[in-house]
C-alpha cells in the first residue's frame, strides 16, 4: 500500500543519511572546513530530524487509518468533525517547534553576516564564464578559467576525476585567516559558491556583496557558479587552494614576478608562428565558448570570425572590439583581462586561423600603445 511505500522510502532515506560518514560527498551536505559551515550543517540536520519525526507521527496515523479504517475491513465511518481544542493544539505546537528552531538559525546568520576585521580582502568578479580574483592589498589580479579539455566534455576522451571542477589558476588563500570576499559582476548575475565554506553569494553587476570565511584545514576546495548566467553557466567552476601562511606569502611573490615577466615580454619582437601558437591557447580559453573552436560562432548571438569582415579587413576595428568589447552584447572588453602579448596573439590568431589568411602580425607593442592611449 501507499503508506508502506512511504515507510520504505523513509527507511531508505534515513539509512542513506546514516551512511554519510562513509560517503560525505555523495548523499548529504558537506560539513565543510569552517566554523560557519559546521553550524550550517548542524542546522540542516536539526531541521531534517524535526521533519522526520513530524513525518513519522503524521504518516503513522494515516497508515493506521489506511489499514484499520478501510471499508473492506468492515470499518463504519464515524461522523465526528470540528474540534477547536484539537485545532488549537496542532497550531500552537508547531509554532513552539519553529521558535525553538529560529533561535540557533538566527545566531548562525548573525555570525555569517559579520564581515568585520578581515585579514585578507579579495574582490571576486564574475564574467561570462570565468572568475576574476583581485587581492586588494597586494595589487595582484588574475582570471580563473575552466581547464577541462573540450574533448572530455564532448566524450572524445576519458573524463578525469575533477571533470568540470578544475581551473587553470585557482584562488589561493591562507588558512586560519579571516578572508573577506567582495563580490561583483561584469555582465550578468553569477553566484560564487564553495560548499566546504558554506559561502554562497550572488555577484551582481553594479553592486558589491560581502561574505567571508576562515578555513581551518589546508586543501583544495571546489565549487561552481550557482546562478544561471547564460550558455556556459555549467562551465565556470571555482577552485580554492587553502595553504599555510608562509606558502601563501611565497605564492604572492611568485605570482607577482610572473606577471611582471609577462609585461616585459610585450617589449620584444614576436614572430607570426609564436603568436599563432600562443593565440590558439588564448582563443580556446577565452573566445571559443562563444565563437566556437572552429571560429564559426553561433549566429546571430555569437557571430562567426571565420571569413568575417572585421577579422579579414579592418585591423583597427578588430583590435578595438577585442580591447573594448561591444556595448549591449555579450562581447566583453578584454583590455583589462588579458596581457598585451595575449591580446596580440589572439588577434593575430583570429586573422590567420581557419582560412583567414591575412598574414597580419599584430605586435604586442601596438596593443600596448592602444591600451595606453585610452
Amino acid at each position, binding site marked *: 500500500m501507499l503508506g508502506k511505500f512511504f515507510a520504505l522510502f523513509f527507511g531508505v532515506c534515513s539509512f542513506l543519511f546514516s551512511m554519510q560518514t562513509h560517503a560525505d*560527498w555523495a548523499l548529504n551536505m558537506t560539513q565543510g572546513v569552517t566554523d560557519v559551515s559546521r553550524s550550517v550543517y548542524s542546522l540542516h540536520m536539526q531541521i531534517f530530524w524535526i521533519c522526520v519525526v513530524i*513525518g513519522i507521527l503524521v504518516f503513522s496515523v494515516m497508515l493506521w487509518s489506511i489499514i484499520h479504517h478501510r471499508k473492506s475491513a468492515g470499518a463504519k465511518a464515524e461522523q465526528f*468533525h470540528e474540534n477547536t481544542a484539537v485545532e488549537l493544539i496542532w497550531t500552537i505546537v508547531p509554532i513552539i517547534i519553529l521558535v525553538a528552531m529560529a533561535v540557533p538559525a538566527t545566531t548562525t546568520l548573525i555570525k555569517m553576516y559579520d564581515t568585520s576585521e578581515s585579514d585578507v580582502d579579495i574582490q571576486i568578479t564574475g564574467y561570462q564564464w570565468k572568475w576574476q580574483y583581485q587581492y586588494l592589498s597586494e595589487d595582484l589580479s588574475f582570471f580563473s578559467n575552466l581547464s577541462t579539455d573540450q574533448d572530455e566534455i564532448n566524450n572524445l576522451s576519458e573524463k578525469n576525476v575533477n571533470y568540470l571542477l578544475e581551473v587553470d589558476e585557482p584562488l589561493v588563500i591562507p588558512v586560519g585567516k579571516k578572508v573577506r570576499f567582495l563580490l561583483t559582476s561584469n555582465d550578468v548575475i553569477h553566484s560564487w559558491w564553495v560548499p566546504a565554506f558554506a559561502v554562497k553569494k550572488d555577484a*551582481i553587476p553594479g553592486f558589491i556583496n560581502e561574505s567571508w570565511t576562515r578555513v581551518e584545514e589546508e586543501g583544495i576546495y571546489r565549487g561552481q557558479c550557482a546562478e544561471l548566467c547564460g550558455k556556459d553557466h555549467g562551465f565556470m567552476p571555482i577552485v580554492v587552494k587553502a595553504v599555510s601562511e608562509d606558502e601563501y606569502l611565497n605564492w604572492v611573490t611568485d605570482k607577482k614576478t610572473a606577471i611582471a615577466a609577462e609585461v616585459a615580454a610585450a617589449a620584444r619582437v614576436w614572430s607570426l608562428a609564436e603568436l599563432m601558437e600562443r593565440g590558439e591557447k588564448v582563443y580556446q580559453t577565452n573566445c571559443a565558448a562563444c565563437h566556437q573552436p572552429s571560429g564559426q560562432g553561433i549566429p546571430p548571438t555569437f557571430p562567426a570570425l571565420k571569413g568575417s569582415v572585421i577579422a579579414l579587413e579592418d585591423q583597427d576595428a578588430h583590435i578595438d572590439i577585442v580591447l573594448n568589447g561591444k556595448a549591449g552584447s555579450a562581447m566583453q572588453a578584454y583590455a583589462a583581462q588579458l596581457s598585451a602579448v595575449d591580446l596580440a596573439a589572439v588577434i593575430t590568431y583570429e586573422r590567420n586561423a581557419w582560412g583567414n589568411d591575412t598574414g597580419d602580425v599584430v605586435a604586442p607593442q601596438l596593443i600596448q600603445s592602444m591600451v595606453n592611449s585610452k
Partner: protein
Amino acid sequence: MTSATSHHHGPATGMTRWLYTTNHKDIGNMYLIFSLVMFFIGGTMALIIRMELVEPGLQVVQPEFFNQMTTMHGLIMVFGAVMPGFVGLANWMIPMMIGAPDMALPRLNNFSFWILPFAFTMMLSTLFMDGGAPNFGWTFYAPLSTTYAPPSVTYFIFAMHMAGISSILGAINIIVTIMNMRAPSMNYMKMPLFVWTWLITAFLLIAVMPVLAGTVTMMLTDIHFGTSFFDAGGGGDPVLFQHLFWFFGHPEVYIMILPAFGIISQIVPTFSRKPLFGYSSMVYATSSIALLSFTVWAHHMFTVGLPLVGELFFMYATMLISVPTGVKVFNWVATMFRGSLTFETPMLFAIAFIVLFTIGGFSGLMLAISPADFQYHDTYFVVAHFHYVLVPGAVFSIMAGAYYWLPKWTGHMYNEFLGKCHFWCSFVGLNLTFFPMHFVGLAGMPRRIPDYSLQFADFNMISSIGGFLFGFSQLIFVIVVVKCVKGGKKAEAVSWEGAEGLEWSVPSPAPYHTFETPPEVK
C-alpha cells in the same frame, strides 16, 4: 434540482460551437484539453533535459538549447499546464457546486480561454526564431533576460502579457460568479472547499498578475526604449527585478496549490465517507496562507545580499507559513481517521498528494532556514523541493479531480484498472525522478547545468529513468479519458458512494444547462 430536458437548445454544431461557446462546460473542456496538450509539450521538454543528463558529458543537446529547454519547460508547465488546468476545473465545477446556471460573465469566459492558444503559439514559436527561444530560466532574471537575452525575448514578453490578461479575466469571472450566483441559502461558510480555495486564488491572481505585467513591461522598455530599471549602469538595480518577480512569484506558487487543496478537501471526505474534520479551520488556514504569501517573497533571494534584518524577517515569515499548511495536512489525516476508506483512483491520487506534498513541505521548511539555504539555494535540492510540491501537488490534484469528476462529465465510469495503473506508474516514476535530486542537491550539484561532474552520475541516471517512466505513464491517462468519453459503465447521478454536494444532484452526464432555477441547499 433541475434538469435540461426542457425547451433549452443544446450545443451548436461544428467548429463554431467551440469558437463562440459561452457555456461553462464547453469552456471547461477546452481549458482542460489545452492544459493536457501543454502538459505533454512541457513534458517532452523535460524528457529532453533528462536525456541530456543521463550521464556526464554533452551528448544530446548543446548548452544553449539545454537552457531553452529548462526555460520553456518551466514556463509551459506553470502558465500553460497547471494554471489552465485549474481554471478548467473551476469552469466546470464552480457553477455546478454553487447551484449557478453558468459563469457570471460567459462572453468574458470565452475570451479568456481563446487568448491562451494564441499566447502559447507565440511562446512556442520562439523556438524557431533566430537566436532561439528564451534561455534565461523561467524566472528570467535581469540582466540575463534583458541586455543579454536573445531577440525572441520580445515575443516572450508579449506572450506573458496575453497569458496574464487571460488569468486576470478568468479570476474576475470566478470572483463575480462566486459572489453573486450562489444558490439563495448557500452562505459563504456552506460553500464547498474547492469553491472557497478558488475564490481566494482568484484574489491572489488579481493581486499579482499585474505585478508580473509591470515587470515584463519594464524589461521591454529596458530592451527597446533605453530605460535602465534593471541596469546599474543607468541607475537601476538587477535585484529590483527579483523583488518584483518574486512578489508575483511567491503568491503564484500558492495560486498553483490552493485549488489543489480544495480538490483534495472534496475527495478525501468522499472516499472516507466522513465529513471533513475541520471545515472552518481549513477556510481560515487557506486565507492565512494567501495573506502570508505576500510577506515571504525574498526567501527566494537569500543569497542576493539582503540586509541582516531583511534576511531574518523573511526567514521567520516563511517558517510561519508551515503552520497553516500543517493544519491542512492534519485535518485531512483526521478526516481519514475512523472513516470507512475505499481506494479508487481519485483517492489514491489524493493520498499520494497528502504524503508527497508534505515531503515537499518539509524540504520547504528546510529551505526557509536562511543559513542552511546558503547551501541549498540554486541546487537540485530546490529542484527536488518544488517538483515535490508541483508534481504530486498541483499535477496529482488535477489528475485526482479529473478522475473524481469524469463520471459526472462523461456519464461513464472510467476504467478503474487502467486508472490504478496510471496512478502506480506515475507514483513510482515521480519518486524515482525527484527523490534522488535531494541527494545530488545536498552533495552540491547546481541547478540548470547541462553537464555535471562525475560524483553526481549515478543519481542522475536514476532520475532520468524515473523521468521517462513518469512521462510515458501519462499516456495511460489519455487512454483512460478517451475510453471513458466513448463509453463504459453508466455513471449514477451520485457517482461515488460518499459523494456530497450540488454537483452530484444533477444527472450524469451533466446536461448542457444545469440549475436554470436555483436549487435548495440544506
